[in-house]
Structures are given as C-alpha cells and as structure tokens.
C-alpha cells in the first residue's frame, strides 16, 4: 500500500506517461491485427454470391420422421387474429396451423423457385362459370379440425369456409379481397360456390394468398375474437405462444396429408436482435436463417462451413419512392421522369446490397416474362442520366430545383443508406433539397396509408401478396383502398380490370407486360433497389428451400410441412 501505508516501501510505480505509451502501442497493434484480418474479404464476395444455387431441389433420400426444427425469428406476432393483421410475425407459422382453399406448390413438389402452379389445399378442385363470376370449390372429404377443444377433431365442411370468408369480409384487414364476394352457397357439405360482384379469373390466386387461412368458427363465436387461440386444419397444432419468447408448433397426427408433416415440433424463438440470431445459427440453436448480403454469408460460413446456402432472387421490390403525384410538382410526368433518371439505382445495388440485389419493380416478373428484367429492360426513365434529367426538369419549369420532404421508416438498416443516396443524387443532379424525416413505424404507417401527405415518402406495397390480381388491380386501380402510391391513371384502370377478366394465360402475360410498361413509362411507382438475400440452412435440414414468391421463414412457411431433418 505505497501511497497510504508509510511502513512499506513503494512498489513498481508506473508513471501515467509510461502507461499511456504502453497502452498506445498495444492499441495500435490490435488495430493492425483487426485491419489485417479483415483484408481480402470483400474481393471474394461477388464470386461467392454467384456460386450459391438459386434452388435446392427436393432430397432424393426417403424422409425421416421426428426431430425439432428451430428458428430464431426477428418477428413476433403482434396478435394471432388473422382478421386483424397481415403481419409476417403471424404468418411465419399460421400457414402451418391452418390451410387455405388453394395454395402454391411446396418446395418438394415445385419444379423450381419460379413454379407458380396452384395446388389444392382444402379444395380438391375448383372451376369457374364461363363468365368467371361464379367459382365452385370442391373440398377434400375427411379433413378434420385439430383435435383441440372446442373443435375436437370434427370434420371441416364448406359452411366453415363460408363463415370464415364472411368474417373476413365483415371487418379487418382482408375486407377488400372478400367484399368482392356477392354471396356464397353450400349446395352440399363439400361444395362451396362463390358468387363475385364482377368477373375475376384470378380469384383462386386471391384465396391462395398466405393470409387467406381458414379459421375455426367455434373459436370466434366463443371468444368474440381470435386473439387467444389459433386452431386450424393444418399440419401443426399451436402448442404454445408466449409473446416475446416462443411459438411452439406440434405435429398434428390427424393431418389430412397422411404421413406428413415429418418434423415433430417447430419452435420459433423470438429473437429481435440480428447478431443474436446469427449467433444462434452459429451455435446450432437455430436450424436456418435469413441473411441479406454475401459478406454475411461468408462470415457465417467461416464458423459453419457445412451450411447449405440458397441464393434467393426476389421477384419484386416492395419499396420505392412514393410521390404525391396528385399534387404539383409531381403531377407532371416530366418531373417524375426527371427524378427517376437522376437516381443511380445501380450504385445502390452495388454498394448497399453488395451486388446481390434487384434494381426494383413492383409486379413479379414471373407473370409476364421468364427472366428477371435487367435495369436496361426497365425502360428509359430508370436509367441513370443526370444530364437528361436536368433538361427535363428545366422543361417542366423547375430548372433551379425545389425543396421537398421525404419521410420513411427504417424497415431494415440498408434502407437508411438508400434514402441518403437518393438525397445526394437529387441534390447533386437536380438541385432538389430533400429534407428527410425518419419516423417510428406507427407514425410512418399512419401517415403513409392515410395518403394525404405532400412531397415524398419511402413507400411500400404489402409484403404478403403473391397473386397477380393483388399486385395489379388491388395495388394500382385508382379507387382501390390499397393503392398506396396514389396511382390515378385511366389506362392502368382499364388494363388491370381487363386483366382480371382474361382467362387465357398468354393474354394475361401480355396485359401484365402492358401494365408494367405503362407504370414505368409514366413513373407511377418509382421502385427502388431491394436485396435478394440468402437462406442459410444447417446441413441436416431437407426440403425447406424458399420459392420465388415466398421465403420459407416468412409467408412461405407452409412449405415446412414437407421439410424433414436428416439426423
């Protein structure tokens, strides 16, 4: 005790200066080590991303029964009432507890990621009348509700589906889709006849949407809502739902698809933090994970070299710059085109998404062409041409630029970088001063959906939808309540209406292409680049690959009914 005990001699004193000197050298050394360790990582990223397969075909081995599939999830269901939310937090498992009338092909029966074939789920077959206004669905016989009170395994009938669709039409988030129904009849226990208010050849796609699940009438009648219990006919029974902790799904032994599902339990752990989710995958606490960028895959593969990677390719971008196009200056198409041409989308793809992203479009390309469009194919107004943009803006009377605002909610970290890049581009190329406001979700959402804002917003279209009708008529028809981008174009109105009245697949493709061309020509929705991302699986996970329209960790969860664990 040198300073205070006068009886003892001083020990090895270290002066402040000596200490700081030593500390500085140590710090410098550590920095050099870290910098050195990080070198050489970026160079391999692009090639690595390209080397991962887009599709993981179904396993050729016979499936094994049993085991527990676990996933650390970013999403927590806000509530479990399918009438009241479209949140991915709910549909990451609701598609496993419940069924729809029809569905898209699951990963072990799909020919590839872009297989858009509709298959029967609760329905065995379906057909329309010649006018496409009456759709008749023949239900599977012997489908039982899960053996849980109050259903106790009773048989599903057409009346159940009718009741459910009526409830969706009555209130909640699916009213737009189901209010299209004029009436329903059930000529027998297994037949549901749906009369639509207007012809729609795409109606089966609407009831194949991941959110259109059939819930149990008894639960709604007993509880008054569906916030406490989710009982369906699906491959898994919801055994536990502890908010902010976990959702546990247990195999339904009475599932109509005999022998399936293969996995005994699917556990979804609520894990809001990204680094924790990655740590969970690394340590084997999670069986699969979604990551956005090639560098993240590479980092994960350093600790998990046997991980199986699927390079996902998005068929659409859900986000874009939404303009108040019903007001000046954005009601002038020249202004919209100038802004669009002043934004360097390729730079966003290359920098923000490390080259693994799409330039951005809103209608899934699979509905009008086979290959994803390149930036060039999206038309002249999305090409980065600052000079032409300046001229066009001057022609529109805004040669000196103007001031505007943009509000957004950061759905993912890269979004803020994108917003800032757009701000820079507009200032540099068009002298447009864009004031950015970052909002919390509820404020952003309320303001955006209300649709009375001025200036710009980093807008979205619902993330759940996969169907062509939803992606065209529902989102672009001028009087649709889901027309968040405030599109008001008579040509689009005509085309989207015509599309839903056209039964021929080739004609549908042609009309869809016209809709997309018109959208890009008039810059009705200014789509921004979006990541492609990767699904990374532990090597024992089989048949869980994501398909083109849906990821198996989110709205595409029903595909996990066919997954199995090779352990």
């Amino acid at each position, binding site marked *: *005790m040198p300073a205070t005990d006068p009886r003892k001699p001083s*020990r090895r004193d270290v002066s402040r200066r000596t200490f700081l000197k030593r500390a500085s050298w140590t710090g410098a050394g550590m920095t050099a080590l870290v910098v050195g360790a990080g070198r050489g990582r970026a160079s391999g990223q692009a090639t690595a991303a390209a080397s991962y397969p887009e599709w993981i075909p179904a396993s050729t081995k016979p499936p094994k029964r049993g085991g527990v599939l676990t996933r650390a999830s970013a999403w927590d269901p*806000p509530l479990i009432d399918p009438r009241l939310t479209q949140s991915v937090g709910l549909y990451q498992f609701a598609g496993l507890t419940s069924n729809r009338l029809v569905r898209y092909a699951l990963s072990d029966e799909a020919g590839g990621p872009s297989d858009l074939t509709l298959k029967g789920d609760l329905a065995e077959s379906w057909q329309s009348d010649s006018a496409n206004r009456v759709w008749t669905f023949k239900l599977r016989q012997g489908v039982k509700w899960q053996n849980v009170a109050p259903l106790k395994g009773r048989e599903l009938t057409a009346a159940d589906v009718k009741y459910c669709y009526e409830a969706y039409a009555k209130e909640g988030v699916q*009213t737009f889709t189901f209010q299209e129904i004029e009436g329903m009849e059930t000529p027998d226990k297994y037949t549901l006849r749906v009369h639509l208010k207007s012809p729609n050849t795409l109606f089966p796609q609407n009831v194949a949407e991941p959110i259109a699940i059939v819930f149990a009438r008894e639960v709604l009648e007993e509880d008054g809502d569906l916030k406490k219990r989710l009982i369906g006919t699906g491959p898994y029974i919801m055994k536990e739902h502890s908010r902010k902790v976990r959702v546990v799904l247990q195999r339904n032994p009475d599932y109509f698809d005999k022998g399936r599902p293969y996995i005994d339990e699917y556990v979804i752990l609520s894990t809001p933090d990204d680094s924790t989710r990655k740590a969970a995958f690394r340590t084997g606490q999670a069986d699969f994970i979604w990551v956005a960028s090639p560098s993240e895959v590479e980092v994960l593969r350093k600790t998990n070299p046997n991980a199986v990677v699927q390079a996902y390719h998005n068929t659409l971008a859900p986000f874009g710059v939404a303009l108040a196009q019903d007001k000046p200056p954005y009601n002038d198409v020249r202004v919209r085109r100038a802004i669009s041409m002043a934004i360097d989308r390729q730079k966003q793809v290359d920098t923000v998404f490390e080259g693994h992203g799409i330039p951005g479009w809103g209608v899934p390309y699979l509905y009008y062409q086979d290959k994803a469009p390149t930036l060039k194919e999206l038309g002249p107004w999305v090409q980065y041409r600052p000079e032409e943009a300046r001229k066009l803006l001057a022609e529109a009377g805004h040669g000196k630029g103007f001031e505007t605002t943009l509000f957004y909610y950061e759905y993912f970290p890269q979004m803020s970088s994108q917003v800032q890049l757009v701000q820079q581009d507009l200032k540099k190329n068009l002298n447009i001063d864009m004031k950015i406001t970052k909002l919390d*979700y*509820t*404020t952003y959402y*309320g303001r955006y959906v209300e649709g009375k804002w001025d200036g710009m917003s980093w807008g979205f279209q619902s993330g*759940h939808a996969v169907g062509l009708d939803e992606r065209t008529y529902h989102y672009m028809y001028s009087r649709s309540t889901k027309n968040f981008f405030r599109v008001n174009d008579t040509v689009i109105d005509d085309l989207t209406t015509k599309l839903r009245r056209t039964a021929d697949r080739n004609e549908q493709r042609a009309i869809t292409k016209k809709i997309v061309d018109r959208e890009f020509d008039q810059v009705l929705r200014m789509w921004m680049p979006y990541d492609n991302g990767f699904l990374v699986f532990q090597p024992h996970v089989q048949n869980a690959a994501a398909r083109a329209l849906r990821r198996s960790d989110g709205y595409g969860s029903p595909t996990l009914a066919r997954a199995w664990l090779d352990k």
Partner: protein
Amino acid sequence: MQKYVIRRLLLAVPVLLLSSLIVFGLMRVMPGDALIALMGESGNVGQKELAKLRKDLGLDKPYHGQYMLWLWQMVNLNPGDSIFTNEPISVSLKKAIPVTLELAALAMILGITIAVPIGVLSATRQDTTADYAGRVVAVSGLSIPDFWLATLVITFSAIWVHWIPPIGYVSLWESPWRNLQQFLLPAAVLGFRLSAATMRMTRSTVLEVLREDYVRTAWAKGLAGRMVVYKHALKNALIPVVTIVGGQLGVLLAGTVVVETIFALPGMGRLTVEAILYRDYPVVQTNVMLVAATLVTLNLVVDLTYAWLDPRIRYR
C-alpha cells in the same frame, strides 16, 4: 424516522401524479394510434369501421375522461387490458417483472462484486499498474455503450466458444440452471456498466478516507493493512458509493431495454418499447408509472441506508 418515511411517501404522491400526467400527455401527442398499428398493412378499413373500433377501444372518449379512468384503474391496482393484445396488463407485468427484476438484481450483485474490490485495490495501490488497469476498466465501462458490448459478447461467444445463452426464456423455478445460463452474460454486461461508476467512486472515497487522521491512528496502532482498509476505511467510504449505486438504478433499468432485446429476454424493457411502438397507451402508462414508483421507493431506501452505514445520521 417514522415521520420522515411518511413525509417522503406523501411527497411521492405529487411526483407520481406529475409523472402520470406527463406520460399520458406524451402518448397522446405522439402521432398515430394503436388502431393504426393494429391494422397492420391493410389500409382498407372504412371510416365507419375505424370509428367503431375506436369506440370499442375507448379511444373516442375525451382525453380528461381517458385520464381519469386510467387513474382510477391505477388506484384500484387494476390497470386494465392491453389495447393491442387484449391481455390484462397485470398478466403481462406478472410475466415481465420477474425477468427484469432478476436481470437487475444479478447485474447489481455482479457490478458491486466487481466494483468495490477493484476500487479498493485501485485506491490502496495508487499509481501502480493495478491502479491504472482498474481505472482503464472503469473508464471503459463508462464509455462503452451497452448495445455494443452486448453485441460483441454474444458474437464472440458464438465464434470462439461456440456457445451463447440458450434463447427462449425459462423461469428460475422451471429450470434454475438453464435460467442462470440465460441471465449470466446479460447481467455481466449490465453489471460492467454499473461497476464502472461505482468503481471510480469507491476508489476516490477510499483514497480520501485513507488520508483521515483516524486511519493514520489505526496504522500507528499497528493494525494489519486489511483490517485498516476493510474495517476502518471502507465502511466510512461507502456512503457516497451507496448514493452512486442508488443513482445508477435508473441507468440500470434503462439498460435492460437494450440488453433484454439483444439477449431475447421478455422483460419490462421489451414490453415497454413494444407498447410505445404500437401506441398501446395503457401498457406504456402503467409501465412508466411502475418504474417511477420503483425509483421513488429505491431512493427512499438508499436514504435510509445512510443511517445504517453511519449511525450519526438522524432523520427528522
């Protein structure tokens, strides 16, 4: 003493009332409401339906009516139901409070266990390598943000030892071992932060006390160093340390928000943040009032501890 406690408790009433007004007002000033959050991404609900839902949720009442109703519920210890989930708030709290309480308690224990010995060591070996090391640790604790430290801890645990705390909370009574595994790292992260200020305060007060006459007398009597430091010096040096620890409780509760999120623990922090994001007014209001009441009580406890540490202190 009794009078003092009663007076302090009475003084807490206006503090709590003011807090209730502030939190109620702030929640109403924030744009958007629970209904908008509840509707997810639909945008397809008619005005008539919206009005009906607002009425069902009690959001159509005038503000003063809503405030009085909530106050009455709080006085009756029945804070009502969550707008968002319909779950009684008391049930949500029953699940969340033990998590935060356990985390905070463990963090406090770890923090003090680290801080006091190192602070004493630092003071008794002033200007040695041990002292500088202790001070570096303290400054690091003060300057490294919780979220960054927690992220590093979880990432490097996974990479280096291929282990992280098991995700998916289990209660202490359900599985004590698993529960301890889940809480040790987050408590260490929080405790590290807490220990920093405490460590510095311990060092400086112990240094000050060691220079007092009575300590010199103790040395002169030939008492062993350990006896002088721990028996004579430390107890007298602890009053400012207790004040600091008491003051740190607010920081500790704030820190649980981040740490609970990173370590996926379903405590008060996550409950409150989620409620704020979803504009779940009753839940936010109740949680904030609970935290306010806790802090008021803890401050009183800290004040009362002084008398135990220094019998010369009298409360009037």
